[in-house]
């Protein structure tokens, strides 16, 4: 069943072709009339002040780090889930211990206030 890689590649090609073509078409067909007002970024009608790449809250960074941690831990569930029936009670108990520690980590993050937005 190695044939599916060919199918994947073909899918990618066509999936890239459709938006690529349409975006290309719209750049050709559309008119181009740039006026000073149009060139400004739209910020609710006010003239923009300062550069757009502002600093934004560190909260987003914390969410990203937490995501990284938990996502890696979630991935550990997948091999176990596939072999769930073969690993039987041993695997289940091991996974319960693992889940306990992941749960403790979540509890810790929760109590430390990482999950609060204000």
């Amino acid at each position, binding site marked *: 069943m190695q044939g599916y890689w060919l199918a994947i590649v073909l899918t990618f090609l066509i999936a890239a072709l459709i938006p690529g073509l349409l975006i290309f078409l719209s750049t050709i067909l559309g008119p181009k009339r740039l006026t000073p007002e149009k060139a400004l970024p739209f910020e609710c009608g006010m003239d923009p002040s300062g550069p757009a790449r502002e600093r934004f809250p560190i909260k987003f960074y914390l969410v990203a780090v937490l995501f990284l941690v938990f996502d890696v831990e979630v991935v550990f569930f997948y091999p176990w889930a596939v*072999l769930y029936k*073969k690993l039987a009670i041993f695997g289940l108990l091991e996974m319960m211990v693992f889940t306990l520690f992941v749960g403790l980590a979540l509890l810790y993050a929760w109590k*430390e206030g990482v999950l609060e937005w204000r």
Partner: protein
Amino acid sequence: MDIAFPAVNLKGVLPQLVVTSFAVAGLLVDAFYRSTRMVFAISLLGLVLALLLFLSNWGKDGVYEGALLAVDNYTVFFNILFLLIAVATMLLSLHYIDLTGVDSGKYYPLILFATLGMMLLVSSMDLLLMFLSIELLSVSMYILVGSQRERWVSNEAAMKYLLMGAFASAFLLFGISLVFGATGSTSFIKIESALGGLAGGGPFLIHIGIAMMLVGLGFKIAMVPFHMWAPDVYDGAPTPITGFLSTGSKIAVFALILRLLMNPFSVPYSQWVVAFWVFAVLSMTLGNVAALLQRNVKRMLAYSSIAHAGYILIAVVAMDGRAMEAALLYMTVYAIMGLTAFGCIALLAKGEEERFSIEDYTGLAYNYPLQAVVLSVCLLSLAGIPLTAGFIGKFYLFSAAVKSGFIGLAVIGVLNSAISLYYYLGLMLRMYAMPTVAVEGMGHPLVGKLAVALLGILILVLGIYPSPLLGVIKEAVAALPAI
């Protein structure tokens, strides 16, 4: 597909599990109750429990065949040493962190995690576990170094340590991958058997791998070409953590290097003796000469700790049973000296300020008699004056080098000790000189003073009567495969 269930022997790793559980419990208690005292008590309890468990493990040799961990006298010896270092660090920190505004709830559990990293590091029998534990140790250390959020030097030190440490880790990991490529395994036992029958110490690839691993590990022990971070980080870190970093982390990596050279890399090692000789000489000389020029006591001790890494490298060069014993003895002695020196500095703080500048130490003995006496004993020991533990350590080290035929190295070591005498004694004399300005006295907590005094007494006791420790070390070294 059949799945072979691993035979899990929990008893062998019980101390590590205890430390892990108590560290996690400490963090959770901090999150829920915000009580520094409780976190301190829990962390200390975890360390003491693990210590007792290890003591019961002593003498019960058992390498886990095909497993990741070794439990033998060698690892048990070091594990006990790390736990004692951690206990001492915690006791020395108790008052200090209240004084200097360290985020204390995470401080103690992080010490536990760092200790866990050291414990796993010496016990690891697999390159991957080795890397994981070295990262656990390092990451905990990065945070501990930066735990004084209000002081910008602390932040700077943490950032510097993190960036350069990550760089070193990359080297280490790349070296591991090359070794894996050359031998087809990450297990120490399998690497050794794969390298056993090869001429010329194995393929060229393995030497590149070893060189890269050496960069990574050399960074962690602040060996000379890779020592740049040490003075800044030691200076910026909270003082008890400086002690912890310069003793625990360094000794853990040294213990690992000794095991690596003994066990998997014994064959290619023969071609690396010269390199280690050069590193040893460079570390000793540069460390001592640079320490001469320092006006900041913490930086001075940082350079001196680089020099001490050089002394321990003498044992790595000599590398026989005698040298191993000398190395273990010197590491133990150095742990006590390092903790004492940095502990005394931590306890000399006046209010929120610490005394770093060498001028601050003028006439200190009249206001802080205990700290001054202990620090003097410690400095004498660091210099290697007879009747102190430092002398015994250096004596064994140099005689091991001479017996193995590295007379030149021993001579350089002795000369370096002579150089170091100048700055150690300089600081000591300054403390006993007449004070130029009146120094206000500060009350200090009993626990810290007691811990420092105990360490000072230990230095003297080991200097006069080292044979029990030597007996224990002989047993620990005997657990390793014959060289």
